[in-house]
């Protein structure tokens, strides 16, 4: 069953609105993986009030789709195997649902790396707060991960360029400056990053032994 906010707003809206949380929530694609009973319907209705696209998915599939922005699911031992990612590589924000009397292992919160917790029975306020907490924390974490990935890539590139430079200096008897100039000219002519040229130099050196 696919439920969608009836008048879901497009990315537009007013300057103030679009920058606000309300506008951001309206663009979300939310997956609700709970039984379609009375409480399940309540949860879906409350989420729809944000004008987000809300998809209901039940029974739980083998693997939960990774296309959603936020997933609401009961925290069970089996959930871990149904997520399409390992902890630390989440594709969606995860709101873990717990029963009022939770007797299980609290370590599930850690191992499933949930971004927010929602307790049964649901209240309108709690549904919204868990959504906001999960989505904003997840977004920040994703931006930081992106920044770190870029730094890692940059450090790798620096190392590769240094190695290629050394090959050019010894193999082609170029000066340090000329080695750099050579790689940069190649990169400019081919319109590729200098690290790609450096990698090619290292690879061809390896092949020639």
């Amino acid at each position: 069953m696919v439920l969608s906010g009836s008048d879901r707003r497009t990315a537009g809206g007013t300057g103030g609105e679009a920058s606000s949380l309300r506008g951001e929530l309206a663009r979300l694609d939310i997956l609700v993986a709970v039984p379609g009973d009375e409480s399940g319907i309540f949860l879906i209705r409350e989420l729809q009030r944000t004008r987000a696209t809300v998809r209901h998915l039940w029974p739980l599939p083998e693997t939960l789709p990774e296309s959603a922005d936020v997933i609401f699911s009961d925290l069970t031992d089996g959930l871990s195997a149904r997520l399409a990612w390992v902890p630390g590589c989440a594709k969606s924000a995860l709101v873990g649902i717990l029963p009022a009397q939770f007797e299980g292992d609290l370590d599930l919160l850690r191992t499933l790396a949930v971004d927010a917790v929602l307790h049964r029975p649901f209240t309108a306020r709690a549904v919204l707060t868990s959504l906001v907490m999960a989505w904003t924390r997840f977004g920040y974490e994703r931006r930081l991960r992106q920044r770190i990935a870029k730094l890692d890539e940059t450090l790798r590139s620096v190392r590769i360029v240094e190695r290629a430079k050394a090959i050019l200096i010894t193999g082609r008897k170029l000066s340090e400056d000329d080695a750099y100039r050579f790689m940069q000219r190649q990169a400019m002519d081919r319109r590729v990053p200098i690290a790609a040229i450096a990698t090619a130099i290292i690879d061809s050196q390896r092949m020639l032994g």
Partner: protein
Amino acid sequence: MARTSDRRDDAWRVGVLFSHSGFMAIIEETQLRGTLLAIDEINAAGGVNGRELVPVIYDPGSEPVVFGQLAKRLMVDDAISTIFGCYTSSSRKAVIPVVERLNGLLWYPTLYEGFEFSPNVIYTGAAPNQNSVVLSRYLMENFGPRIFFVGSDYIYPRESNRIMAELVRRQGGDVVGEVYVPLRAQRSDFRSAMRLIKAARPDAIFSTVVGDGTVYLYQSYFDAGFDSANMPIASLTTTEAEIRAMGFDVGKGHITAASYFQNIGGSCNERFVSRYQKRYGADEPTNACVEAAYFQVHVFAKALESTNSMATDVLRTMVLGTEYEAPQGAISINETSNHADLWTRIGRVNRCGQFDVVLQSQDVVPADPYMVGAGWGLAAGLT
């Protein structure tokens, strides 16, 4: 949930953070003007998709801490996600945690020391590979290998000098002195610097002094009887605005590396200069920081026209890769680094307080903020 309380629901609201007061006002006010000129132009042409662009302007008073607080105020109280602002690296570093945590977009129109990438910043000023690399070589080839460093005591000069020292030494040159003055330097703070320069007898001076201190440095140099024809001060930050403040006779013969000078010609630039002077006065020069502050608003508006949304994630995707005909020439926003691909130029101050271009790149120089390619090969692209 945030509510839209603004009565002008129909407008696109953007934040503007440049100092109108304090020791950085001399240059930041020009960036404010460049920003407002672009906003006026866009509104005069009917706004963006029929909606007006409305700036919400605060004065951080040259205090980095206040920059951070006002960024928070813009994003939290005013519900604004796009901010144009910052000159000093200290102020940028105060704003970045806020825009990263709350997912805003800071447009930073100032050259800086590089070695940074934030997904929440669009950098439209030059990185070191777009100015320092060429400047170091120009100084050594034309004046000699012995360079003296003088800077303000904060992040940008120390980091910039680290890069410059590496560039100078690798070309066989020597850093014959390095001295820092307080960020809010007075005239008297430069006396000992002048004595050190006299004793070291360098071939050129590389200055990373910013703000009011710039004027005192060049005036102290002039008063000490040094000759800019033989031992010029070279800088990345001394623009037409500072030259005007120090006096044309004081500035004459000194050197700056920048992406833009008022004097570069071109019809796009001439239109920009005439509109700027029409609005702010015929004797008000433009400069590289005004130009970046100006063109970045246009790049933003161009992207906004396509997205029709100010949401950061939507807007950033559209901004990356955007090309724009700026007063300095055609520029683009580099998709891999969030930095602008810009022109490299070296200018020398003439007796009218303008820069004569003595060297310029044949095309834009791709931004390489981490100096991965070490930026050495620029020789190929220079005329």
